[in-house]
């Protein structure tokens, strides 16, 4: 009858936490996992936790993953809960992904283009056969080396825009709203939507993006460009009139090129969907770009028919910390309300049975 102890069950809680800590550690004869190991060898999990946790700190994300026993949503939650305690000194200047030190850059729309196609460290063309050499701990042979080309890699969307084929984006110099400080309001502007998508659950956005490809929302997407690499973060303190470089972070950026049939006032052209994510997280950036484009239906005067185009549906259900909280809260005791339901159901059934008997 352990559950009954929810009421004032202090001893039960302490014991449960003790058990959890032991379960997290696993067999004590097995070496403890170091944060460096997680950072180095589970790097993509670290990237995902930083993105969904809205906090760029690799070692804290690694700690969260360790503490959460590898549950990445729980880890993102731990990181968010920590992030919220930090005081804010200011906002960095917008990052310049044009100046990214590229580790990977591919375009699916052109066979070759200035800056070239850089495959980089990708799973894309591996054959998914379990590699039993890893089981034996055999180190990989050294990868071939080359000096990086410092050739400019102009954005594909810019190349299309130069020909007038890409719908221009209107620059907005107003300070963007901050999703972490202000609640979402509807209709949401694009900066707010992109913030919500950037911290949104990868799996949820993946499914929504996928649905737009399968006819639920009229998407005709091409990966104009996907780039992964390091960008500088610059801060301009109010007392200085020049920005200070405070460090580099890795980001993944995806510009999806989509068809747009045109409207009464605009000719047919391409439109863009945008995705940006901390770390190396291509699936997330691509899914985000698909959903961003789907959510522009209203602005472009397209008919809204599919879930991915419905702003409230998407933005209010994409945050996995919120979602897991509400779903999992069903484990909390609800017996007061349930008692009420029980009595009501008994009453209705008794009436129905009585009426049937008459």
């Amino acid at each position, binding site marked *: 009858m352990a559950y009954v102890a929810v009421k004032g069950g202090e001893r039960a809680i302490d014991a449960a936490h003790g058990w959890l800590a032991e379960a997290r550690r696993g067999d004590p004869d097995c070496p403890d996992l170091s944060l460096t190991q997680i950072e180095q060898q589970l790097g993509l999990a670290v990237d995902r936790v930083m993105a969904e946790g809205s906090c760029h700190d690799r070692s804290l994300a690694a700690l969260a993953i360790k503490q959460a026993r590898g549950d990445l949503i729980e880890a993102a939650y731990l990181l968010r809960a920590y992030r919220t305690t930090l005081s804010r000194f200011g906002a960095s200047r917008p990052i310049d992904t044009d100046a990214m030190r590229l580790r990977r850059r591919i375009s699916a729309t*052109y*066979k070759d*283009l200035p800056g070239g196609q850089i495959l980089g460290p990708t799973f894309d*063309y591996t054959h*998914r*056969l379990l590699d039993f050499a890893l089981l034996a701990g055999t180190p990989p042979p050294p990868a071939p080396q080359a000096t990086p080309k410092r050739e400019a890699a102009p954005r594909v969307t810019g*190349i299309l825009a*130069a020909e007038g084929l890409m719908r221009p984006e209107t620059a907005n110099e107003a300070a963007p709203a901050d999703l972490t400080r202000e609640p979402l309001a509807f209709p949401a502007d694009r900066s707010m939507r992109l913030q919500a998508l950037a911290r949104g659950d990868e799996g949820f956005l993946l499914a929504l993006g996928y649905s737009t490809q399968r*006819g639920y929302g*009229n998407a005709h997407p091409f990966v104009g460009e996907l780039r992964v690499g390091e960008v500088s973060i610059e801060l301009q303190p109010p007392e200085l009139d020049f920005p200070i470089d405070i460090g580099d972070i890795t980001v993944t950026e995806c510009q999806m090129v989509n068809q747009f049939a045109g409207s009464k006032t605009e000719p047919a052209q391409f439109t863009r969907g945008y995705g940006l994510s901390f770390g190396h997280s291509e699936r997330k950036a691509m899914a985000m770009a698909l959903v961003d484009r789907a959510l522009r239906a209203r602005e472009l005067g397209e008919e809204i028919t599919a879930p991915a185009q419905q702003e409230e549906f998407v933005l209010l259900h994409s945050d996995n910390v919120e979602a897991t909280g509400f779903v999992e809260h069903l484990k909390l005791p609800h017996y007061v309300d349930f008692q009420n339901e029980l009595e009501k159901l008994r009453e209705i059934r008794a009436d129905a049975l009585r009426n049937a008997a008459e």
Partner: protein
Amino acid sequence: MTTAAGYNFGYLDENSKRMIRRALLKAVAVPGYQVPFGSREMPLPYGWGTGGIQVTASIIGPDDVLKVIDQGADDTTNAVSIRRFFAKVAGVATTERTAEASIIQTRHRVPEAPLREGQILVYQVPMPEPMFRLEPRLAETRKLHALADYSIMHIKFYEDIARTGHIATSYNYPVMVDDRYLMSPSPIPSFDNPKLHRMPALQLFGAGREKRIYAVPPYTKVRSLDFEDHPFQPIRADGTCALCGSRESYLDEIVTDDRGGRMFICSDTDYCGTRAAGQEAAE
């Protein structure tokens, strides 16, 4: 028969191959009809050509010569990857020459050189349902196919013409097969659609993620959907290949700088290479 350590010839087990061959036979018997099949998880991801790979794996034999193209080219990363896969799990001979191949697996193109009897062209298909953008529910499109009711596609084309003066579809342009089933030719450019008509080679289409197989048997009538007063018009960039000088082949656009510089080259690398070699020999 085994090749690569621990895997059956062609990767799939013999029972799975037999299941797929049965679906293929049915598909050949009912041209253009989408046959559901028990698609398997493959070691290449969905979207990379798992349908085509399963079809190829089921029909390939030790004497076959395999060619794999993506975007018309043998040297594109995905084509290289799939060719290597079959070299590893089936140990078959591979080629880049269209004429020498007994099986050609393709993504997004039909080779420029005409195919002959005895060859098999295996298409990788992302969305087998030609009407999915108009009606995403599979139970509904199945009914429309049963009734041969393709009016929604005609209305879509009519609306395109009313709005822009053109049918707005450029690739994955739907075709009628044997005057009965509306079929997606896979996302090939509409430029390639006429090649499907009465082709002497067998055409097999595999959609792994969507779990459908369909086929166009040799010499079958394949007509691109259109209107009498708006006949089907295949699209091709108005240019000349910078390597072989072809004015007939389908071209890729290469961006050479960010000041509007462009050049065109053949998308079909074997066609282009063969022509360029012929010109060199003639000189």
